[in-house]
């Protein structure tokens, strides 16, 4: 280990985003289903949301002057890391309940882990963010864990 992760950086583990509440519309489901090449009628008609629709529903909506020159929104949950080149990422998604038009869903994101490994070409920083999506009854609809690697 090259000791990239200072106590100050690691102190960000546990940091949580403010809850975001969004409404699911048939139109948004249809757009998502069409853009992903889906062939199932229930999704193309927007009767129910396909898996991974939550990725679109909770993508950060920021104003133009908050985007970087390459068009990316800055994730305010993340500290400034000593490595910045993003490599492969992974998702682990649990589907607990179906999503329908008219549903109000709330997401909360938590930075759950930061760790370091040595890769072939130098040190790598991993971080994990868990996003819980719940309905207005407080029931878990989706739990998604994102793992990202920086080099």
């Amino acid at each position, binding site marked *: 280990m090259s000791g990239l992760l200072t106590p100050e950086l690691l102190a960000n583990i546990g940091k949580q985003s403010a809850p975001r509440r969004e409404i699911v519309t048939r139109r948004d489901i249809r757009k998502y289903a069409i853009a*992903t090449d889906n062939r199932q009628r229930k999704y193309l008609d927007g009767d129910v949301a396909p*898996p991974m629709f939550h990725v679109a529903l909770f993508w950060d909506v920021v104003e133009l002057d908050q985007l970087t020159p390459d*068009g990316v929104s800055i994730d305010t949950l993340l500290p400034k890391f000593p490595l910045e080149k993003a490599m492969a990422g992974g998702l682990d*998604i649990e*589907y607990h309940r179906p999503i329908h038009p008219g549903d109000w869903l709330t997401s909360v994101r938590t930075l759950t882990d930061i760790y370091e490994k040595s890769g072939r070409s130098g040190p790598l920083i991993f971080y994990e963010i868990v996003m819980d999506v719940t309905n207005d009854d407080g029931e878990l609809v989706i739990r998604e864990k994102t793992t990202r690697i920086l080099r």
Partner: protein
Amino acid sequence: MNPKVGDHLPERRHTVGNVQLMLYNAALWNGHRIHFDEPYAKDVEGYPGLVVAGPLIGDWLNQCVEVWLGDAGTLTRIEYSNRAASYVGDVIIVGGTVTAVDGGEVTVEVSARNEAGDVLAPGVATARLGS
């Protein structure tokens, strides 16, 4: 449906065009220029073309499992990682194999690969049989 270890899921080939990639990122509100600004993607970032969005490939893994399941079950979990980039115009082949059947639960190994055989996104999905 009576899935058995070793069963293959029907494969599907996807070819992403500019319009689809733009609509996908618009549906997300993803303004990352590597997905729509070809001079930027090539000259500044050094990619051979416009980069297919990682979660779009992930979505296809979900679809592969759901289409195979039909009404016989429900997708309950999927994990995958984006290992290699792919570009507008590439043909991306998505498929899977049943690796475990335990009572009402089926585990499937899924993958997306390009025509050269490079694995772009390997994953594991779990489904519950029955409605």
